[in-house]
């Protein structure tokens, strides 16, 4: 399995939950080693969220996650397109993908 680099972006207030950093490039580890119990080799958004929770989300994860997905009201864009067009949690992450989280839950 070759390396998997993704760009994570946060806006609309979602960045406040991630040390106010709006953009970061991360390299995901080999999935079989990271989550051996799930018996999968390809990263999808579902596993990415687990990885983010373990590695990036320091406090109050309930403001970002709900169940195994993002909290309703947080929009997810995969390469600048609505994730609802790409299978949401089941989308298979490709090397170089840009995944963006925009909160709609912050003040208007």
């Amino acid at each position, binding site marked *: 399995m070759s390396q998997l680099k993704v760009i994570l972006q946060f*806006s*609309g*207030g979602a960045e*406040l939950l991630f040390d106010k950093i709006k953009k970061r490039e991360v390299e995901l580890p080999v999935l079989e080693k990271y989550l051996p119990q799930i018996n999968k080799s390809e990263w999808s958004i579902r596993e990415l969220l687990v990885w983010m929770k373990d590695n990036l989300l320091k406090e109050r994860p309930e403001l970002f996650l709900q169940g195994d997905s993002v*909290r*309703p*009201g947080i*929009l997810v*864009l995969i390469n*600048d*397109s*609505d994730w*609802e*067009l*790409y299978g949401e949690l089941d989308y298979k992450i490709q090397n170089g993908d840009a995944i963006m989280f*925009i*909160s*709609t*839950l*912050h*003040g*208007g």
Partner: protein
Amino acid sequence: MPVLCRTGCGEKAVLKRPKTGDALCKNCFYHAFETEIHYTITKGELFNKGESVAIAASGGKDSTVLAHVMKTLNKRYEYGLNLMLLSIDEGITGYRDDSLETVKQNRDDYEMPLKILSYKDLYGWTMDEIVAQIGRKNNCTFCGVFRRQALDRGAAMLNVKCIATGHNADDIAETVLMNVLRGDIARLKRCTSISTGSEGTIPRVKPLKYTYEKEIVMYAHYKKLVYFSTECVFAPNAYRGHARALLKDMEKIRPSCIMDIIYSGETMAVKEDVSLPTQRLCVRCKFVSSQEVCKACVLLEGLNKGLPRLGIGKSSKAKKMLEEYNSKLEHSAKERAIQDLNDHKVINGSDKCSSKGKSCKSGLCKSKKKYTEIDNHVNKCCNSDCSGRCKCNQSNDKENEGNTKINTLLEQYGINESSNDSGIDQNKLDVPNNDIVEDLLNQEEDPCSGSCGKMGSLQIGF
């Protein structure tokens, strides 16, 4: 596998519209988004040609998108409107000072004049100062009540025909839910109307009434509009937060629920015999109010008298506070005699006026008199037109506290209940209910339109 735009334009779709489920490309989305707002404006006849319109601008996503779309549509469809931005500076360090920078950016980007009004100038208090007095629990009440009036004042200064606010479909659905959950029929009735404002006031209109929050955020994102997105530093509102979470959960399962809730709110009819507060002008500041003296004036008076909680808690508490305040000021025997007389009168009949008698002992003090007038008004309302719950609201407040204490005593000592005032018994049934409603209203009263919540409020019974 890229999904193609449903219109058949050949472009790659970028989003799924929550309202229709359509997959659209950027340009087709912009077109649909803007055209729908145009239809909302024309169908609701929100504006007339040549009018001046103030856009209530907070620097957040909704008002930023509203300003952008209004400018676009004004040009495209030749509305002939003179648009300007109106912002309120509540004086919240680390929140509003930052968001006002965004509004100034809007002013430059959209070439619209901007008027900023501050609480400090209007009321003599910043929110920071108010919070220092009141603490963090009830400050939303101040902020919301003051903001609503501040917008009216600003609009009057700008001499505009109406104020456009950025309330979106999610906000309105959320407010419908909230008002149902609180049994607030007066607001339930009002909150879905696209244009609000009675005679003599500057109407507010909501061009984004049918626009989903998701689409507003996506529009701002694709158009690269700069907006400010930080929660108000003071108030994450618990009750509204729950309504919001519930709505978002339901939207996930069935996106059309937002439109459906608005539809329900719009078509719900209020029974004729339900009495609603009538709008009138505050005798002090001449702005619209449901009471003789508006909530803003009551709150302000509390602040200025060093009784910041006046007008926040139950009315009985406010009365008690005023009593204490007044008794500190006046100790003359004559006054006490009058009070005795008043107390006597209370026992003899007029069941709801005990506090009235106490808070306005002599009728000499101007401010005290104000409260007497409020009480009078309330009593009038209670006695004459209220068939249902309102009847008991005011008197219960007072009796409530007494009741709980008395009941505890009764339990402990088995004292005969008849020692109570006779008026209490008939009201008793409603007590727990009203208590809850009152508590919610008071604690969760959430009139913030800038950030934490949306609906302005002047209708809380004092």
